[in-house]
């Protein structure tokens, strides 16, 4: 297979996500409306509570991260979700395509959409709440975004894995998982205020480290971003491996056929 052919296998998922996204009216809601509403309500809450500028930055970083995470995780989950909804899963898996083609291709689109959301929210928060999103420099922003995207891809893969293993309705489990993740990674508060066991759990979640990293630019102590990046990459590799195993398992259990019915 030539490199162009190989490239197109990656881009097949990007292409599909792009078309479905541009044709879906909810895209506007996903990209602009909900993130914007989220940001605005959190920002206004900080006004009401009359918190310091540092605290405003702290909370806004969390709100922005959450929106990016959500949009780019669903782009990876769409690998299976769209096919699940149209009952066309077998068309994909009868073709000579591998898990990493689908994940990286969909992730590319997630990165594009996630970056767009970041830009919108960063500009809005600077305009309305005087938040200087470049306080730590461009590199900080890029590392923070990269970490968030890699983490999001793992959650998206977890959704796909649970569908392949347990069927249609199992995606709920994976979404709940990402909810718990958000609870313990300290999106709106420092993880130090969590009870002991949850604090321990938060140390195993990459997002915790990326939030700390970005916030350190606003005077919130130290960070261990390298550890976070290491964890994120580890989870990414593990999720990809498990996704491939789940695809093979779905071929053995017949789930691959049932999901197309």
């Amino acid at each position, binding site marked *: *297979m*030539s490199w*162009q*052919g*190989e*490239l*197109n*296998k990656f*881009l*097949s998922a990007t*292409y*599909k996500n792009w*078309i*479905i996204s541009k*044709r*879906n009216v909810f895209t506007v809601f996903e990209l602009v409306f909900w993130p914007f509403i989220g940001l605005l309500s959190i920002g206004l809450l900080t006004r009401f509570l009359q918190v310091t500028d540092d605290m405003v930055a702290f909370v806004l970083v969390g709100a922005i991260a959450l929106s990016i995470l959500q949009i780019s995780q669903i782009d990876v989950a769409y690998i299976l979700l*769209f*096919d699940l*909804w*149209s*009952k*066309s899963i*077998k*068309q*994909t*898996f*009868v*073709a*000579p*395509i*591998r898990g990493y083609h689908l994940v990286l291709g969909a992730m590319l689109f997630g990165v594009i959409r996630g970056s767009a959301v970041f830009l919108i929210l960063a500009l809005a928060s600077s305009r309305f709440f005087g938040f200087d999103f470049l306080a730590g420099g461009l590199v900080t922003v890029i590392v923070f975004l990269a970490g968030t995207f890699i983490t999001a891809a793992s959650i998206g893969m977890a959704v796909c894995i649970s569908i392949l293993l347990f069927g249609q309705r199992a995606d709920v489990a994976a979404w709940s998982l990402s909810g718990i993740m958000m609870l313990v990674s300290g999106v709106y508060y420092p993880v130090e205020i969590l009870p002991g066991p949850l604090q321990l759990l938060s140390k195993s979640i990459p997002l915790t480290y990326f939030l700390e990293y970005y916030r350190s630019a606003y005077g919130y102590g130290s960070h261990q971003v390298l550890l976070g990046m290491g964890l994120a990459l580890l989870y990414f590799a593990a999720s990809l491996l498990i996704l491939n195993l789940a695809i*093979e398992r779905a*071929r*053995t*259990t*017949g789930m*691959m*056929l049932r999901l*197309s019915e």
Partner: protein
Amino acid sequence: MPALRAEKICKSFRGLFTKKEVLHEVSLSIEEGEVFGILGPNGAGKTTLMSIFSTLIRPDCGHLEVLGLDALQKTHAVRERINISSGNPNFPWSLTVRENLNHSAMLYGLYGRNLARSVDEAVAAFELEPHVSSKFETLSTGLKQRVSLAKSILNRPKILFLDEPTSGLDPDMAMKTRALIQKIYEEQDITVVLTTHYMPEAEELCDRIAFLREGSLIALGTPGELKRALKIGHRIFVEYEGDLDPVKLRIIPGVMDVRQSPGRVEMVFDHSERAVSRIIKAFAEADILDIGIDQPDLEDVFLELAR
């Protein structure tokens, strides 16, 4: 080298507390350039077998060779060289016909001008030009079926698996689709494996037929061989007035059965050609009022085997 060789393929599907055997030690071999039919009643395991052949799902045991490759190991290489289209096909709903074909072509690693040409050819082959910009969800059953067939030739497969390619189509559309399949078969150097519930279709298209029942292969051969093996002969009936000695009928070579009722006799012969003149002679002392011959068809084979 056969295009496909299956040896003792088994498959069971497990529920939480149940296990259902769907295929039991199916062995068969399909020659290159053949149109091979898989027939059998509902739930016999045809779709499961096609899904295993096309590497979509894995068998529990057995050995499968596709185009000389071990299809349980070299799944990726096999997928590059084959394709499948199934009845009631589905594609991402909000993509148009062309977008869906583009997407499928990308899945097969096509790119650039080659991709555009493959998609154009597939669109032309199944006469989809007027519909390329329609969303998949707006298409009729027949058109969806044709999109699926068009998709199945994008990568110029060496083996094409067609699972009920004409199910849900009206007779006219079904005939057209059969003609299109025939055309693809003639124009491209290809082996076709198909399932159908429509016997005239199997008889028209297939060189050989395998018959599955409850997951086991119970018959295999050309349509003619199957009819002979099952002693499904030509039925000849005669209505007459006058005297008839039935013994004269029973000694005619090739007779398989004779049934007499007043004024009417029904016989089954393995061949009708030479029998007719002998039959007429046997009625020398009677007047023949009517005579008719029923050619056996695959429908009879099906009914006999499915019993």
